[in-house]
Structures are given as C-alpha cells and as structure tokens.
C-alpha cells in the first residue's frame, strides 16, 4: 500500500485571501460574505413573516379542533363520495386530513420561521481528527497490557482454556431450548389425507363449494372444479372447515378437477390415472406452494398467479413455463359402486414445493 500515489493534500498555505488568488486562480477564496435576506433588513417583511408563521400555527390548532370534532361527530361506517377519490370512509378522510393539516402546519411554521427569521449566517466549526494522538494510543496500549498481565490470562493457561471451553459450551443450552419450537418433519410432507384411501376403503372427492360428492358427468369438458377429501375413517364427515387441522390439511389435500377429451390427453400414464378424461391434480404449485387458480380451457394450461408457473394439464401437468421444477402430482381416481368419483390411494409424489428429503 504505497501512499506516494495519493493526491497531494491541499497545502494549508495555498488558500485563503487575495495574495494566494493572484498566484493560483483556483485557490480557496474563503467563506463568502453573508448576504442579508429581506427579513434581515426590512422590519415590515420580518413582521409579515412573523404573521405567516403564527397563521400556520393557528391553522394547526384549528385542524386539531377539527380532528376532535370529526372523531365525536362522524359515524365510522359513513361513506361519502369525494372527487376524484371515489367512495371513501368519511371518518377516515376527516381524521386523516385534519391530523395531516395539524401536523403539516406545525412543520411548515417551524421551517418558515427558521428560514426567514432565524439567523442564516453560516459559521465554520473546526473538525478534530477521529484518531487519538500517539501519546494517548501508547498510554492505552500500556494500560491494557498492565491489565492483561495482572489478570494472568496469558500466563495461567489452564484457567484460560477452561474458561474458553465453558463459554463455548454454555450457548448450547440456548440452542437446546429451541428444540420444542416444533415437531420433527418425519414423513409428514410426503403424506396427505388421500393416503388413507385404499381400493377397499376409497375416499370420495367432494366439491369444495357445495360440499357434495361428485359424479364424472358433473365435470364438463373445459370446466375447473376444486375438490377436497370426503368421509374417511379418521374424518367421518369428510374434511370440514371446523376441523382443528383444516388449514394444514387443505394446504396439501386441495385438488383441481378438469375434464379433457381422452383423445386430447397427450400423456398415457396421466390418462390412466384419470377416469374417462376426468383428471385430478394437486392444486398446490410445486414451486413455492401457491394454489394454482387460473385455467385456460382451450390450451389446458393451468397458471399459478403468484409466480406464473404454467403447467400443461393435458400432458401430465408438465411445466411449460415459469420457475416450477416439476409437474403437479396427479391423484389416481375412479368411481365407486354408486358412481361417485373416488381416490383409492394417495399421490405418488409429495405435493407442494420441493424439499431436501423429497424423493422421486
């Protein structure tokens, strides 16, 4: 780190004053003289500024009174039309504007006061080096050495090492205490409620909106229907909003049902997993888990509105655009004796975003 390439520091004798200017046209002429403002020399202008400042403070007072009056007199559910804002809450508008004016006028008054009536003479103040001088530095280092020597930290190695050891271990208690923040993942992310279904005890697909089981003929070509699990051994009434773990369950169980003419289904495996062209895909995006909600019936593309991953549902939900890394898992469906759509097993792959333990 050579210092010789640094620019030369300004020579203190270089600047300031007429003599220096004659030699160096770029020399510092020093602080310019103060130019008085109108309010500095004209008492009437100063008086006017004083009245302006007071007026601003007065407006602020009135606005505060207005705030209190609005608070007690305007109903919180009153809606008014104000151009160009549209229909808005009268109370929110009144409180916000009066508070805004009350605050703004205090600020405007103070700034106007400072700019017109307080002195605007610029003054220089000396800076002092941040670094200590050599004497102080030497003194402090000496003090530290004395303190270190008196502690015997360097000399008594056994104390030093055991202390370092104890200090290193003691935070482990804190780490241990975090263990009960939550349970271990185990295989929870691999399973959904659909895993409970078997060919002997299938689970019906229930329409998310009507809460009714569905028959294949209920699903018309080009439609998009959302479904959840119907009655099972562990949920006799099917998955209900009132279930304690509804949110956790629906985050994995949610299905999208579509119907495509079987001939238009490009992926044979996918066609086999469906029933007469009715296909059941997980609704949860494989990117970061948003629910996929936008469906183009002509192209059979499904789009996630969060990050625009696009899946071709006619081709095994292959990713055709966007940041998702793998297709949407598909649920094998068939019909039961009464003709209702059922699942006879779980998804072959875990639903939702990828995770380290996910295997395929």
């Amino acid at each position, binding site marked *: 780190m050579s210092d010789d390439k640094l620019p030369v520091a300004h020579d203190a004798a270089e600047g300031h004053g007429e003599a220096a200017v004659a030699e160096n*046209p770029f020399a510092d002429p020093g602080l310019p003289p103060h130019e008085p403002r109108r309010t500095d020399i004209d008492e009437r202008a100063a008086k006017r500024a004083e009245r302006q400042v007071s007026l601003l403070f007065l407006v602020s007072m009135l606005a505060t009174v207005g705030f209190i009056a609005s608070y007690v007199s305007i109903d919180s559910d009153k809606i008014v039309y104000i151009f160009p804002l549209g229909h808005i809450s009268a109370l929110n508008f009144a409180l916000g504007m009066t508070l*805004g004016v009350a605050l703004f006028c205090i600020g405007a008054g103070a700034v106007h*006061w400072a700019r017109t009536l307080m002195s605007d003479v610029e003054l220089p103040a000396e800076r002092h080096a941040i670094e200590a001088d050599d004497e102080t530095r030497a003194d402090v280092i000496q003090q530290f050495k004395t303190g270190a020597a008196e502690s015997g930290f360097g000399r008594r190695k056994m104390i030093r090492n055991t202390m370092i050891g104890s200090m290193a271990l003691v935070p482990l208690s804190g780490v241990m205490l975090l263990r009960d923040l939550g349970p271990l993942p185990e295989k929870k992310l691999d399973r959904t409620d659909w895993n409970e279904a078997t060919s002997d005890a299938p689970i019906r697909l229930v329409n998310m909106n009507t809460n009714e089981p569905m028959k294949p003929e209920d699903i018309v070509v080009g439609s998009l229907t959302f479904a959840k699990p119907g009655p099972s051994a562990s949920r006799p009434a099917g998955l209900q909003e009132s279930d304690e773990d509804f*949110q956790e369950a629906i985050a994995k169980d949610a299905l999208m049902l579509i119907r495509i003419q079987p001939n238009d289904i490009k992926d044979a495996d996918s066609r086999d997993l469906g029933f007469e062209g009715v296909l059941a895909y997980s609704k949860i995006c494989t990117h970061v888990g948003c629910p996929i*909600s936008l469906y183009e019936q002509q192209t059979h593309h499904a789009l996630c509105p969060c990050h625009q991953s696009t899946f071709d549902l006619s081709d095994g939900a292959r990713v055709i655009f966007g940041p998702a890394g793998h297709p949407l898992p598909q649920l094998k469906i068939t019909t039961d004796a009464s003709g209702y759509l059922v699942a006879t097993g779980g998804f072959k792959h875990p639903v939702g975003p990828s995770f380290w333990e996910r295997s395929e």
Partner: protein
Amino acid sequence: MSSASTSAKQAAPASTRDKPANKAEAAADWVDGRLGIYSLAKANLRKIFPDHWSFMLGEICLYTFIIIILTGVYLTLFFKPSMGEVIYNGSYAPLNGIRVSEAYASTLDISFEVRGGLLIRQIHHWAAIVFVAAMFVHMMRVFFTGAFRKPREINWLFGFLLLFLGFFDGFLGYSLPDDLLSGTGIRFMEGAILAVPLVGTYISFFLFGGEFPGTDIVPRFFTIHVLLIPGIMLGLLVAHLILVFYHKHTQWAGPGKTEKNVVGMPLMPVYMAKAGGFFFLVFGIIAAMSAIASVNPVWAYGPYRPDQVSTDAQPDWYMGFAEGLIRVMPGWEIRAWGHTLNLGVFIPLMLFPLVLAAIAVYPFIEGWITGDKREHHILDRPRNAPVRTALGAAWISLYLVLLSGGGNDLIATHFHLSLNDITYFVRIGSFVVPVVVFFITKRWCLGLQRRDKEKVLHGRETGVIKRLPHGEFVEVHAQLPQDKLHTLTSHEQYEPVELPAEVDENGVARKVGVLTKTRAKLSEGYFGDGNQIPKPTAEEHKEITSGHGHH
C-alpha cells in the same frame, strides 16, 4: 492508606456556583449536578450542520421510524396476535358469518370499529413503505457522494443493517393480519425455506411449530415484529446518530470549506426548527396520504386459506426484487439419491442477500483499491468518481430490472405485453442491462468532467456574439468567478497504482501476488487513462486566460 484517610476528612464536593438567575437556570443546574448536561450541551447545542437538500433524506428515515413506532404501539392495543378461530360478526357485512382467525378479525375491528383505527393502520403501513424507500434513497446519496469513506465505513454498515432489518420487519408486519395476501406471502417464505438443502424442512417445522400454516406463526412473527427487530433497529439507529454527531456531517466542496472544518448553521435554533419542523411535515404528509390513499385493504382480500389465492399477489415494493429473482429463475431441480435440491428456489434465496451485500461491502473494496487512509469529509460530485457512480447506477439498474420481474404480471396486464416475454427479458436483462448502464453512466460522467474543465478554462458562454474586425463571429465567454473556479477544481484525482518493476535493482525477479495484480488492474480501471479526465491545472488556466479571452 494515608491519602484515603485525608480525603475522607475533606468535605464531599459541593457546588460552588453562584446563585442561579432564575427558576429555569436553577432547574438546569439541578439536572446538571446529576447528569452533567452542561458538558454535553457545550459541544452540541450550537453544533454546526451543513445545509443541502440531500442531507434531509436521512431525516425522513428517522422520522418515519418514529411514526412507525408511535402508530405501532397504538395498533398493539387493539391487535390480537392469535390464530384462534372466531366467526366474524362486525360492521363489514360481506365477511359476516365467515370463520376467521382472531388476528384477522381484530385487524378488521381496527379498520371498522375503532374510530381512527383505520387511519393509524394506514399511517403505519404508509410510513413503513416510505421508511424503506427513504433508507434506499439516503443510502444512494451516501454512495454516490462518497460519504461512506473513512471515517464513516462502520456507519455505512449500521445503515445497511437498518435497511436489511427494515425489509424483514416490513415483511413480518404485513404478514400479521392473516389475510389472503399475507398468508400467500408466508406460504412463499415456507416454500423458500423448504428449498434449503439438509435443514430446510426442519427449519420450516420449527418455525411454524409443525406443518404449514399451523397456529404458531402469527404470535411468533408478532413478537419478532414488535420487539426483537425494532429493538435491534433502535440500537443501531442510536449508534448511527451518535456517529453522525461524532464524525460531524460531510459537506460539499465550496469556498471556505475544507477537510478540517464544517460550515453551516447551528443546531440551536436553526436545525432544531428546521429538522424538528421537518418531522411534522413528514408526519403530516403521511397522515394526509393515509386519509386519501388506501393501502393493504385486508377486508377485500378475505381471510387466509392455503387453497385460495388472488391474482396479482404482490409483496410490498421493497421485497419486489426478491420476488423478481424467484419469478424469473428457471425451475432447476436436481433429483438424485432420494433427495431433491431445488436450485430454482435456493439460488434466488442466496442471491437476495448477495445483491444487497455487494453494496454493503463496497466501501471496503474501494478503500482497498485506492489505498487511501485519510479522512474524507468533503463530498465527491458523482461525476468526479465515474467508476463508482457507474457501479452504483449498474446496481440500481439490476435492482429495477429484478423489480420489473417481480411485477411481470402487472406490467403484462397494464401494458398489454406478453408475460413470457417480460420474463425472458428479465432473465437476459439481469446480466446485460447493468453492463450497458455501467458504460453509459461512466461516459456520461466523463462528459460532465470535460464540460467542467471547459468551463474552468474557457469560462461560461454568455450568449453575446461579437463580430471581430476581420469579420469572424465569436461568442464571448466570461471567466467564472473565483469561488466557482475553486469549487470545480477542488476535487482530488487519484493516480492508478503501479506494479513494482518485474525485476528488482539486482536483476532478481520479484514475486507479485495475485491480490497485488488485481488491485493494480482495478486501480487502472478506476483512475487510468480514459477513466477520468485530468482536471485543469493553474498553468493551463493562466496560459489560456493570458491570451485575452478568445480562443
């Protein structure tokens, strides 16, 4: 021992001061006798601050932070950070009878039942948006003027940490109401955590107290949002301000201004009035904004359910570039040996802090390249540090390109563009645009340096056309006044560091390390030929001005 016994005999120190002139002085004396305020005030009451509009950007950060704290405390009086389920039954009719969490229900109550609650909620949210924006702009001001140089590098880091923590506290804050949008944001966060190799699922299960979404996340986020992060930020903020006072403020070059002084007006009364008044101006404007512009209308989104989502789900603007990273990243996944490495999410997750860290460490990199160990209190004009300015502009352009990636759906619908094209543009643009911006900005700075040089040497154009006796028309140029000449020539110019000769004086080959070579290369790139315009010298000026003003 003897000294101890003699001092014990002496009376305890007592005030020998004259009687105070009035009650106020008496009160001040009383406080001084206990806190030593006179010594503190002596150095600070008439402390000089230089004046420039850009120096108020930091004030906006401070004031919005205070506004956020004030309104945040108010909101905690009514908000219930609980995922306990209730049936909503309040004045917002469309949601009546719907099963919602207490967090969501209490947010609706704040918005509709508590008089002024909606206003305070909106001030809180608007102030947070302005807070992060102001920190950004303030940081850019510090960056482009070189105010981060010694002795202020550590304060730069404090400021950076405040920005980083501000991001997260904002994210946590808008996650609390448990509405459809905030829940979607949390779901995204969970997906991102799951992408972390080895420990991702464990972190997710510990954070959420089990499977997503669970019932722990809102109360946990609440504590972090109102206590942990603001506590750290308050500490950093105080340290930041103490250092501003201790270092004294930087100032622009100008007549009478040196590295050894600071020129401006005193804290009392001018800056007490100006800065104190500015707090009210900022608060007043944000209150008025909150009166007329709705932000985060959670009632319109509805309560969170993991199987529902709204279109144009967007985070607050400051998380937009992270959103862009996650949206435009190709969906790379490596699946092998029974494991999945989700690079499509993990890489953006790592790039997010890296993009920010790049700007955080910059002062240390520039300090290493210049090797300058002196204190700097005079600001650089951005044009006089072309490479730094170009790097900063390139960084901003990267940020903006990624931000547009984060809003690709809105850009697509509002400007009738193809969403896919925007995404492809951002993928390529993230690499290309910053490079293009770098070169344009650098050339622009060099052009401005040339213009300054021209003005110094040939004066300013007066617009007066003179006809010379032989018929030639010339425009009369007027010499710049002394103070302008000084201001335009007072900046320092570094010379590039040179590598030592390859062989020493004895003809033995010198070993030059990679670091030394890199530094020399970078130094050449910063200060070498063509990377800065040599500023005019007094000799050049004399030679030209002695030629009777025409050229």
